[in-house]
């Protein structure tokens, strides 16, 4: 799992490099950054970070065999993930209303590709978490700790990637 993550990390690295490349090394003006709502996205970012922590605690709860706590925390994690996705969708809708799309210009292309791929990973993560959550209602003791650990690492990775994306897409243009 760790290796898959490493491999994925390279994938995202390439996408971020593309974004940074276009931002810094070409003379095109950045239309997207001006139209982004940093504060709102910042709040949604907090949700995503919080979900990482809830996941850590839920794992601990599972290890200590506190099943109810585990379920609650897991549900919160999934909920936070969904909130984040809603935030993203909201952002996309806003941009579409302003006529900023994938095919509009180079920043449209790179913004939607980068955040889109990240969103896709978040959704995958939510699905994986939901499966774990769903299983927990049945024969929980068979859910191997390795499955939890895999999803755990994956989710943290998605979070960390988002921090980078957030920095480069949202914060960096403001500096």
């Amino acid at each position: 799992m760790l290796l898959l993550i490493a491999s994925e990390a390279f994938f995202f690295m390439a996408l971020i490099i593309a974004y940074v490349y276009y931002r810094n090394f070409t003379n095109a003006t950045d239309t997207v950054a001006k139209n982004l709502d940093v504060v709102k996205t910042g709040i949604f970012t907090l949700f995503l970070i919080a979900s990482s922590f809830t996941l850590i605690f839920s794992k601990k709860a599972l290890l200590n065999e506190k099943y109810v706590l585990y379920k609650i925390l897991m549900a919160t994690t999934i909920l936070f993930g969904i909130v984040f996705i809603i935030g993203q969708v909201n952002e996309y809708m806003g941009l579409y209303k302003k006529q900023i799309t994938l095919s509009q210009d180079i920043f449209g292309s790179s913004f939607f590709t980068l955040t889109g791929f990240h969103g896709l990973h978040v959704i995958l993560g939510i699905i994986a978490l939901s499966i774990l959550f769903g299983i927990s209602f049945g024969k929980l003791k068979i859910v191997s700790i390795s499955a939890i650990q895999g999803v755990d690492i994956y989710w943290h990775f998605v979070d960390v990637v988002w921090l980078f994306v957030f920095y480069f897409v949202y914060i960096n243009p403001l500096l």
Partner: protein
Amino acid sequence: MSLYIKMPEENEPLPSLKRARGKLLWISSVDHKQLGIMYLWLALFFFIIGGLQAMIIRAQLSWPENHLVSPEMYSQIFTMHGTTMIFLVLMPALIGLGTYLIPLMIGANDMAFPRLNAFSFWMTCMGGVLLYFSFLAGGGPKAGWFNYPPLSEMNYTSTAGVDYYLVGLILTGIGSIGAALNFVTTVLCMRSPEMKLNMLPLFVWMMFVNAFLMLAAFPLLNSGLFLNLLDRQFDAHFFIPSSGGSALLWQHFFWAFGHPEVYILALPAFGIISEVIPVFSRRPIFGYKFVAASTVAIALLSYSVWAHHMFTVGLSNAVNSFFAISSMLIGIPTGLKVINWIGTMYKGSIRLTIPMFFAIAFLIDFTLGGLSGISFAIVPIDWQLTDTYYLVAHIHYVFLGGSLFGIFAGIYYWFPKISGRKLSKRLGKWHFWLFVIGFNLTFFLQHILGMIGMPRRIYTYPDLPYWKVLNLFSSIGAFFMFTGMAVFFWNIYTTLKKPRTVTSNPWNAWTLEWAVPSPPNLKNFVEIPPVHSRRPLWDLDHPDKPDKRLN
């Protein structure tokens, strides 16, 4: 007292051919041996297609102003030739050998993730099918195997070929990442308990390092492919300079993948050679640690050399110099390997078998390819000679003289293990001589063609002095290779019809795969010989003078 360690029973029987009858079970099999064989068949199948394409190319170029195929067809053929040979022949062949042999060589009963293994194979297969489906969907890709935008963008290539190329390569890329994941995990977790990581056979060690290379390189390619696909299908602008994109970025992505890819294809071949030469010289490899460490050096350095494919795009001298330095440095570990292989033969007792023939052809031709590679690291020479037939000659010396000869050596070497029958030595010699002579005839002349100014990827050329005769001889060489391959297929065909006669260790080799029957049973090891050095079977055969104990 038994020397052998009992292998635990599998707790869950996995689908495979051996469990039931019927050809259909090949599809559902997750046994690493069957998947390895399927990889090899896949590679052979595409090798025929790619080879025929090569024959068309050479026929077209036999004389000036030839009109055998249209320029459009020609673009498709050379693009597909390159793509097929790299992604659908060399990759599956090497991954196939790895899949078949790694568990056997480290004393495991299967790969770490058998289902992922099957998934990887079918992804690769699917990618190949999609690539070739493009011909039915309005024409194959025709922007060269490295698919430089803007030529590969909608404005300049509107047929669907490039889209199939992109999707096909993404799939094979996913397949390769899966295989690499599997290799790493298998080597880390499934080794025989006595085998330490520094006792791995060199082939396994190189596949192991190689897997890391794949894990890091293919995502770069995939992201580039995705971006290009978005460009083509959703009107994004990544690589379209007229609307703010950058044509150079693709080159950076592609070569940041592309150069490691060269080593991804070369390292396993190095591994095969490092197994074959010691066995047939009847001496352990000269300087195991240098051969193994130089592999890691090559792997690490291969990420810092990609811009030598881009010396002519107008990077500044400062950037070019550093890339030149790192590109030349990578020649040192590679050269060290060649020296070690030759050193292994020193004071040996060399048995001239067909695998050894190919290993020697590998040594000589790969040295030539490596040396011409150094000339591309010398920037001014690169400025003059890149993108000419000199380059074509160089990559063929590396990929054929290097990887393919390695694969041939490997196939002749492990064929008894895989099928229980030895390939005919007489036919093998025919194959060897026809192929090697043809290969050198074809491609050595192309060095000269490049120097006198013939660029690559042209479908025809004017009748300039020497061009005609050199091209003609080059084509004749290609015909020799073609005949050689026909002999090879005939050899496989006739051998497979013979009964199985081979003992478990026909070459007197000393790695673990030779401890099991040929072909191995479904469960590889009922019990594993003790492993105390890098040559466990040697220690068993020569208890009076075993190797230095490493555990």
